[in-house]
């Protein structure tokens, strides 16, 4: 992976449309708005906010951002940090995932292999794809396991399901986020097969979207990881607004939430 901090020094070749658009923008803005952008764009203009509490009225984004000269500072008064106790947090996640008509089960680390086997059997899956770096305990037994080593899309289309981990889960919205890490694999494997079983550790659960974005921002800045937010199975409401689960993505999403203590 290329370090995100690297900045190209190659001169951008002169593009007449580029110059035209930038000139139009400067003309349009000549009417008297402030002249400097918030921070230096690449700065941690929002670290102030991400680390703060949900108390209203006390944060100004961009203020004091390192290397930045904030001009369009604004109050970041919305909630950032969650307030739930650990148990309530996990319950909220499960409830919200369930609202999307995904299956969700809470299991201990010891119960996980059985839960995986049951999920696969319940969906009638006989061939399952896994990223090459999943923990041994997750490895499904009793079915054919296909490790993803650049399977073709046609080959992926012929497996019955996929088993992955995740990077973070957001309780408030019932969302799991994959970022191409070792237990998550490349984006295609959690997309093409019809069944997706996702293992979520309780320690990976956050309450709010801003809490998740703070973690994910680190991965994007440092490693340019591609991110996929998944909230339930794929769905459409295009026909008379009737919700139909399962269009192009997996029709069945099963989330297994593994408790902390015995992990």
């Amino acid at each position, binding site marked *: 992976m*290329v370090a*995100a901090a690297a*900045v*190209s020094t190659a001169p951008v070749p002169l*593009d007449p*449309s580029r110059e*035209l*658009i*930038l000139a*139009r*923008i400067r003309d*349009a*803005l000549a*009417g008297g*708005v*402030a002249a400097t*952008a918030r*921070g230096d*764009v690449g700065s941690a203009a929002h670290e102030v906010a991400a680390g703060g509490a*949900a108390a*209203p009225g006390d944060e100004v984004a961009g203020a004091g951002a390192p290397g930045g000269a904030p*001009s*369009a500072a*604004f*109050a970041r*008064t*919305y909630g950032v940090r969650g307030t739930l106790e650990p148990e309530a947090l996990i319950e909220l996640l499960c409830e919200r995932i369930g609202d999307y008509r995904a299956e969700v089960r809470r299991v201990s680390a010891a119960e996980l292999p059985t839960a995986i086997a049951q999920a696969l059997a319940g969906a009638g899956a006989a061939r399952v794809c896994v990223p090459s770096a999943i923990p041994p305990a997750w490895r499904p037994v009793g079915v054919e396991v296909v490790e993803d080593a650049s399977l073709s899309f046609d080959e992926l*289309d012929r497996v019955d399901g996929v088993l992955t981990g995740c990077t973070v889960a957001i309780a*408030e*919205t*019932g969302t799991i986020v994959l970022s191409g890490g070792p237990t998550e694999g*490349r*984006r*295609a494997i959690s*997309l093409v097969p019809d069944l997706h079983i996702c293992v979520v550790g309780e320690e990976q659960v956050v309450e709010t979207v*801003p809490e998740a*974005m703070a973690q994910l*921002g680190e991965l*994007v*800045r440092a490693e*340019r*990881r*591609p*991110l*996929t*937010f998944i*909230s*339930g199975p*794929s*769905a*459409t*409401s*295009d*026909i*008379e*607004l009737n919700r*139909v689960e*399962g*269009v192009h*993505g997996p029709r069945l999403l099963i989330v297994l939430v593994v408790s902390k203590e015995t992990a």
Partner: protein
Amino acid sequence: MSTALPPFPPAAHEALGDAQLRANLHRATHTIRDKRSRVVAEVADWEELRDAGRAIKTDVLAHLDTYLTAFERAVSDAGGHVHWAADAAEANRHVLEVARAHGVSELVKVKSLTTDEIGLNAALEAGGVHAVETDLAELILQLDGDWSSHILVPAIHRNRTEIRDLFARTIASPSLSEDPRELAEASRVYLREKFLHAQMAVSGANFGVAETGTVCVVESEGNGRMCTTLPPVLVTILGIEKLVPTFADLEVFLQLLPRSSTGERMNPYTSLWTGVTPGDGPAEFHVILLDAGRTRVLADEVGRQALHCIRCSACLNVCPVYSRTGGHAYGSIYPGPIGAILTPQLHGIEHAPTLPFASSLCGACYEVCPVKINIPEVLLHLRAKAVQAGGDPGEASAMKGARWLFGGRRRFAAAERFGRIAQRPLVRSGMLRRLPGPLGAWTRTRDMRPLASESFREWWRRRQ
């Protein structure tokens, strides 16, 4: 687009006569409206999020040149290619060039208003490249040669019977039923083949992050993930106003957009990618930064807030005009209240002079807008411009006459006395049902109360 759009009033009149359309629209807009209200109500800091959304967008526009060049640099550093398009034709040309460079004759597309706006499909077709729409609703419209009538639910004007007949005729077997489940399955089967083997994809984007060069696509069906992940070449067209300064800013919009749009806490899939990732997703990635009238909108200090729009479509669903006429009457890919302020600004007020009047100014759109675009304010601003650009001369002289009449007490009282006599033959069961001459325009669609038999002043004098 340089040609004038069809005027709103006759188009609306025609739409109002279509009972099926009105029934479909009523059901659809009310269903989404209710879902939205429920999920917005559970967010305690909704108003604070709206304020933040507006503040971020205001900042983006105020420093658009800085953020665009930062975005350009970040995408290049991440292995992507950045192109600039001053107008629609140039954007289409860029896409066609990429297709030709790879010898592609068919590509897959994610639903994108921006590509509809610039007429990409027709331009590609003219260049020998077929673009397959992959969003279910967009596929329905493409197969039928129809066009979108709602930002979020483009085929909102079509019911299941119409869709079944269309699919049975084009992509599925004649034995297809009307069950939405079966209809969705038909599109899944038809498109899967395309996804797995497409050599190129085109997408729009919801957001671009200046800080990191990250591009974000928000969707439901998974066709967005298919298009942005499987084909080896990806071209994304991004309106220049779609930027946000930092990655963290997305935390605001990823809360505002799904709840405002589909009425969900979060949409099923959101994809974010930053340039190219070896071994994962497309090996070649292009971004086209599109102006096509946006800088013209930016130059208007009142009107530029229309560029805050994140295309959620909440304003359509609450609008008393849209929910009756539907989207086609607006004559543009951007219908409803946001379309009434965006279209005339993107194309020039002289090309869409009737759109700013397609509103009752009730303000419901402003109330639901997740980024607080003051749509009524912009509507009034654009009405003034439309009048300056050559409004109705009859109306102008009538207003002048009214000013003279209302300007003197005696004149006004005399006019009242005259009116009372003149109206006599026109009153039917206590109402004026039809006025003569040009005044008939008013009573064509409404009844009017006659002048009272006695004015307040007369009554007061009598009591003294």
